[in-house]
């Protein structure tokens, strides 16, 4: 754990932590604006009681319009290419837009503006552009929201040079990383796990910034390294707890930043424990999980005492039915089994 997290004095939910980061950054910098579908709600209405009718589909941006008004907290039509692209254009010309792409599974209706415009402009223009854009988006299964609203697919963004990708697991990380993302001069995809919104944790007051690109060891251990992302960090910690009861000391590395990747922290842990389990809720092929396994295979091979284990969902869409979805999501049990398997 970092010293800063330990200093925390109060508890917020992940949702509240994100809301707080948005509020503080908007106060700090008048060029920060928010855009997305129903981020306030009822923008057509002059009836006061309708103001902030939603504050985001799951309430994350609630209250901000009262402080910053409808110009800066801006509802959009359902036209993701249009408003995500407008975010890119606004970022290129002097604003710092935070655009909400409601679910990451909607990337398909606006991907070009993200991967061909935002991500490539600086390079194509020989360094003569800055795109300080943040795209907030929900990831994750477990909401019984079926195949088109449950993807994690951040790997797709990680694949594209020019983007940064962040996926916090705790309220404190959510606050600190979102502040960093907003202040960053590159486009950042900020992935919020919808099943974490109600999870609480200590969050520092006031301005709090966690540099992008730093993994965090969420639990130290010496027998096996478990690298995890977003909600899977909680499953990894639960698994580590059970492993501890079985006399196995697992180290849990929370990647936090998927691009850039903190290779050093991951490699140091692998070199220490000699065993690697990767837990990722995203689709298994061409994923951050395979990146981590590749790090081990290319740069820590001689330290590995056992085959690497991946704990991921299957190569299937996310199913709707609770029994299927529960079997889909990597469970603490599967993590325990994988960790034990690396110990022979």
């Amino acid at each position: 754990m970092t010293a800063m997290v330990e200093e925390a004095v109060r508890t917020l939910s992940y949702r509240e932590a994100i809301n707080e980061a948005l509020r503080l950054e908007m106060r700090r910098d008048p060029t920060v604006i928010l855009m997305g579908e129903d981020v306030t709600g009822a923008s057509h209405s002059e009836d006061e009681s309708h103001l902030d009718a939603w504050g985001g589909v799951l309430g994350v941006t609630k209250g901000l319009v009262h402080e910053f008004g409808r110009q800066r907290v801006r509802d959009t039509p359902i036209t993701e290419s249009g408003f995500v692209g407008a975010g890119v254009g606004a970022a290129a010309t002097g604003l710092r837009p935070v655009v909400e792409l409601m679910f990451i599974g909607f990337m398909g209706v606006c991907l070009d503006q993200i991967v061909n415009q935002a991500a490539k402009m600086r390079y194509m223009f020989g360094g003569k552009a800055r795109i300080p854009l943040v795209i907030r988006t929900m990831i994750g299964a477990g909401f019984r929201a079926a195949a088109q609203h449950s993807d994690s697919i951040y790997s797709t963004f990680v694949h594209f040079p020019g983007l940064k990708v962040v996926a916090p697991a705790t309220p404190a990380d959510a606050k600190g990383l979102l502040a960093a993302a907003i202040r960053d001069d590159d486009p950042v995809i900020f992935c919020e796990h919808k099943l974490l919104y109600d999870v609480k944790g200590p969050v520092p007051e006031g301005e709090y910034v966690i540099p992008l690109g730093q993994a965090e060891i969420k639990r130290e251990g010496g027998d096996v390294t478990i690298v995890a992302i977003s909600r899977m960090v909680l499953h990894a910690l639960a698994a580590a707890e059970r492993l501890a009861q079985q006399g196995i000391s697992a180290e849990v590395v929370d990647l936090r930043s998927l691009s850039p990747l903190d290779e050093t922290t991951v490699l140091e842990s692998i070199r220490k424990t000699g065993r690697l389990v990767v837990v990722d809720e995203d689709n298994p092929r061409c994923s951050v999980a395979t990146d981590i396994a590749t790090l081990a295979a290319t740069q820590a091979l001689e330290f590995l005492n056992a085959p690497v284990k991946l704990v991921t969902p299957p190569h299937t869409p996310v199913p709707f039915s609770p029994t299927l979805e529960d079997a889909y999501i990597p469970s603490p049990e599967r993590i325990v089994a994988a960790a034990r398997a690396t110990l022979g």
Partner: protein
Amino acid sequence: MEISRDKLLWAYERMRLIREFEDRLHTDFAAGKIPGFVHLYAGEEAVAVGLCAHLRDNDFITSTHRGHGHCIAKGVDLREMMAEIYGKATGACKGKGGSMHIADVNKGMLGANGIVGGGPPLACGAGLTAKLKGTDQVTVCFFGDGASNQGTTFEGLNLAGIWKLPVVFVCENNGYAETTSPQYSVAGQDIAARARGFGMPSIAIDGLDFFAVYEAAGEAIARARRGEGPTFIEAQTYRYYGHFEGDSVRYRNREEEEHYRSRDCLYRFRQTATAQGLLTEAELDAIDARARAAINEASQFAADSPMPDPAELLTDVYVDYPMAALWPFQEPAVPVYR
């Protein structure tokens, strides 16, 4: 437009079934019995039924996240629908799709769709199949006022226009996309007029009036069947419940809701049909009772059905794919269910 007694009875029954179905889900959701996002169609029945009244089994429809009404109007099995929404193995999609993805391709129902604007391109494809196979099948593409702003919708209009596809575009303008009114989101504020720019006939109609929908739909579908190309219908309607279940609906007023409820499509159908002596109160009451019983039965069927076997997780991804590759990088290949 002429309408037979049988068709009238059918239409009223379909509308009533939709209403009962949705009301039941509303109650069941509130009771915590249904997981996930559930978008109810109650209030908009006249649109789906007025359109589908002209369709054959082998005609196609594309639908939206708010798809139950379209399914019922197109003849998808009620029990399978209910079971699907409950995530049961006996569901229309074996529990894999849920409310937002109910489909029955054999019935020409090409799927509810979780992506706003997902349907129009698909509808063009179904239209293209009919055109190239030389059949007279028609495709009806349902979508919302919110979806009317999505680029894919405009692309669909354009394709159908230039290729003269047998597609009828039906914008269900229920006044809201989540909380957002087309007054805010639609530049020009006239959805039907925008479609005219694509060179197709386009009208706005009272979507709460079954007879108005039936008439406009009849013309549009006949035109498509004759190979004369697409038509656009903006059906002005209203949804009674929130955007999805759980929505506290803080973005509209009680008066507005009451205004629309007082023009309820089922009620008006009854008024018109009985006033004109087309149907009797008794006949309609009998349908109401039958509908209620059908929904009870569907509900019971869903409740009694088993959950899917976890092994089903790995089926139906592909027609053909190596089993081990469905859970890659595992040793043994498929760790949990094999």
